C-alpha cells in the first residue's frame, strides 16, 4: 500500500514540476511585486522613490555602475533619494514576467520584440519607441566573432565560418535572443552583399551543420567555447565577446567581421506600473540619464556602443567600424522575421531537420 502511495506521490510531484514550469514566470513575478507596490502612494517631492529595472542577463555590471551614478545625480537635483532594484534574466522570459505581473517601472531588454510584447499586453503605451531620443536606443551593439589565440583557422569574415574544418559555437536561435541575432547576422551577411535568399539559405544551412552544440542560452555558449574549449569561433554580442576575451587571459581574441547585425536593446518605462507606483518622473529621468555624457562613458566602458548624438564618435578607437544592418535588411519587420525564420516549421526548423 505504501508503495502505491509513493508512486502516486511521484506522479503528483512530477505534475507539480510541469505546472511550475508553465507558470514559472508568474511565480517569479510575485516575489518582487511586493517591493514595487510599496511605493504606490503618490509621493510628496522629497519622499524616497524606488524603481524596478527589469533587464536582460548580460547587463548586470553595466546597471550596477549606472544605478549608483544616477542615484547621486537624482538626489542632488531633486532632493529625492532613489533606490533602483534590478531583476535579471533571459530577455524574453523577463518580458513574459512583466506581462504576468512583475511590476517593472522600466524595462531594458535585449531586443525590440521583447519590449513590444509588453506593449501588446497594454502595459506600455503605443509608440513607445518615439518617447526617448534615438528611437529609445541609448546604446547599441552587434554580433562579432571570438576566436582562439592567433586565429588559427583564419576567420575574418562570414564566409570563413563555413570552411570545412571550422566549428561554430552559437546558442539556439529558438531559445536565445543572442542565437536569433547571430542567425540574422549570418543571413544578412549574404543578402546585404548581393547574395540571393537561396544563397543565404545555403549559407546558414552549412553554418548550422558545423555547430556541434546549440546551448539554450548565451552564457552557456560562452562556457562551452571558453571554458570547455569546444569550437573555433564563437558568435556573440560585442560586449559579451570583449568580456570573454578579457577573462581568457590572452587565450582568445576578437575578430570584427566587415558586416554584422545591429543589436538594438531599446529601453522603455512601463506606463501602467509607473502610474500605479507614482514613479513616472523618476523612471523617465532614469532613462534620460542614459543619454548624458557620464552615462555614455560608462556604457562605452562596458563595451556597448554609445548612441547619443555627441558621444557616438568619441569612442571610435574602442569600437572598430562595422557596417551594420538592421531587421529591415533581412525581413519586413520583426514579426515577419519570426514568421520567416524562427517560428515552428519556419526556416530554422527546415534547415535543422535531420535528413
Amino acid at each position, binding site marked *: 500500500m505504501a*508503495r502505491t502511495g509513493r508512486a502516486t506521490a511521484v*506522479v503528483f510531484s512530477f505534475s507539480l514540476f510541469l505546472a511550475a514550469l508553465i*507558470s514559472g514566470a508568474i511565480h517569479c513575478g510575485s516575489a518582487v511585486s511586493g517591493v514595487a507596490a510599496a511605493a504606490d502612494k503618490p509621493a510628496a517631492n522629497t519622499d524616497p522613490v524606488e524603481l524596478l529595472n527589469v533587464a536582460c542577463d548580460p547587463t548586470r555590471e553595466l546597471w550596477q555602475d549606472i544605478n549608483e551614478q544616477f542615484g547621486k545625480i537624482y538626489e542632488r537635483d531633486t532632493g529625492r533619494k532613489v533606490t533602483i532594484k534590478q531583476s535579471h534574466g533571459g530577455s524574453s522570459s523577463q518580458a513574459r514576467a512583466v506581462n504576468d505581473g512583475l511590476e517593472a517601472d522600466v524595462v531594458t531588454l535585449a531586443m525590440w520584440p521583447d519590449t513590444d*510584447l509588453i506593449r501588446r499586453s497594454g502595459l506600455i503605451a503605443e509608440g513607445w519607441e518615439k518617447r526617448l531620443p534615438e528611437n529609445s536606443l541609448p546604446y547599441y551593439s552587434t554580433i562579432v566573432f571570438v576566436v582562439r589565440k592567433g586565429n588559427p583557422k583564419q576567420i575574418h569574415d562570414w564566409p570563413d565560418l563555413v570552411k570545412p574544418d571550422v566549428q561554430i559555437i552559437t546558442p539556439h536561435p529558438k531559445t536565445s535572443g543572442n542565437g536569433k541575432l547571430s542567425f540574422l547576422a549570418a543571413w544578412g551577411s549574404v543578402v546585404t552583399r548581393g547574395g540571393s535568399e537561396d544563397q543565404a539559405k545555403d549559407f546558414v544551412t552549412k553554418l548550422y551543420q558545423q555547430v556541434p552544440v546549440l546551448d539554450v542560452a548565451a552564457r552557456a555558449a560562452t562556457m562551452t567555447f571558453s571554458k*570547455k*574549449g569546444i569550437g573555433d569561433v564563437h558568435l556573440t554580442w560585442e560586449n559579451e565577446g570583449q568580456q570573454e576575451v578579457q577573462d581568457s587571459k590572452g587565450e582568445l581574441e576578437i575578430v570584427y567581421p566587415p558586416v554584422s547585425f545591429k543589436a538594438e536593446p531599446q529601453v522603455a518605462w512601463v506606463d501602467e506600473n509607473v502610474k500605479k507606483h507614482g514613479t513616472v518622473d523618476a523612471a523617465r529621468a532614469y532613462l534620460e540619464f542614459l543619454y548624458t555624457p557620464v552615462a555614455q562613458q560608462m556604457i562605452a566602458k562596458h563595451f556597448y556602443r554609445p548612441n547619443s548624438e555627441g558621444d557616438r564618435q568619441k569612442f571610435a578607437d574602442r569600437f572598430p567600424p562595422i557596417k551594420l544592418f538592421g531587421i529591415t535588411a533581412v525581413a519586413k519587420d520583426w514579426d515577419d522575421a519570426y514568421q520567416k525564420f524562427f517560428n*515552428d516549421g519556419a526556416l530554422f526548423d527546415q534547415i535543422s531537420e535531420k535528413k
Partner: protein
Amino acid sequence: MMHDHRQKGKGFFVNRTLPGFRLTLGITLIYLSVMLLIPLAACLWKVTQLGPAAFWAAVWTSRARSAYFLTFSASFISAAVTSLLGLLIAWVLVRYEWPGKRVVDSLVDLPLALPTAVAGLAYSALYVQNGWFGRFLVPLGIHGTYSRLGIVLVLIFIGLPFAVRAVQPVLESMEADAEEAATLLGASRWQTFWRVILPTLKPALITGFALSFARAIGEYGSVVFVSSNKQGETEIAPMLIVSKLEQNSYAEATAIALVLLAMSFGMLALINVLERRSRRHYA
C-alpha cells in the same frame, strides 16, 4: 502492516493516535489543492484554449515524437542503471562495516541538494575532449557529453539517491537468518539471491525505479548542459516546452506538458500493476 492505515469497522470518525482527523485531513486537502490541484487545473485550463486540431498539431509533430522517445528511453535506461547501482550501493552501505561509510552514506543525497545545472556543467566539462575523462574517451569515439549517452549519464546521477534510499531501509530490516536458512537448506549463493533476497527487495526496487524514472522525465536544468539540443537527435521534451514558451505559445507548451504527464502517468500505473502482480505471485 498492510492494513495499518485502513479504517476498520466503525466508519470514518474513529479516534486515532494522531488527534484531529478532521483537522489533519483538512490540512492535507488544502495543501494538495493549493500545491497540486490548482496549478494542475490551471494547466488543463490553458490547454482547453486549443481546439482538438490545434492540440494535436502541437503535440504530435515528428519533432515532438522524437523528443518524447528520447525523454522516455533515456529516463528508462538511466532508471534501470540507477536501480542496479542503487541496490549495490545500498547493499554495501547496509551489510558491511567499513571506514568512511558514514561519509559515503551522506554523499548519496548530494544530487538532491546540488543545483542540477551545476551537475550538468560539471558532467559536460568532464567529458568534453579536453576534460579529465573526455581526453581518454573521445579518442575512442565515446562522447559522454553533447550526445544521448551524456543525457543518460547525467540522469543516472540525478536519479541515484531515489534508488538507494528506496532499497536501503528494506535491506536494513531484512534479517540475515532467512539467508542463513537458505544456505543451510543447500541453496547456492545465486539461488539465495534470486529466490530469497530479490523477491523481498523487489517492491522497493520497483519504487526506486519509478521514482528515479519520474524524476528523469521532468529533468531540464542539467540535461540542457550535456545535450547538444539538436532537434530529432538530442532534444528532450522539456526543452521543447521551453522553446514553445519562448515563442509565447503558452497553450501549446502546456499541451506538450500534458502529454508528457499522461504518458508518465500511464507508465507509472503500469509499473504499479506489474509490482502488485509480482507480489501476488510471490505471496
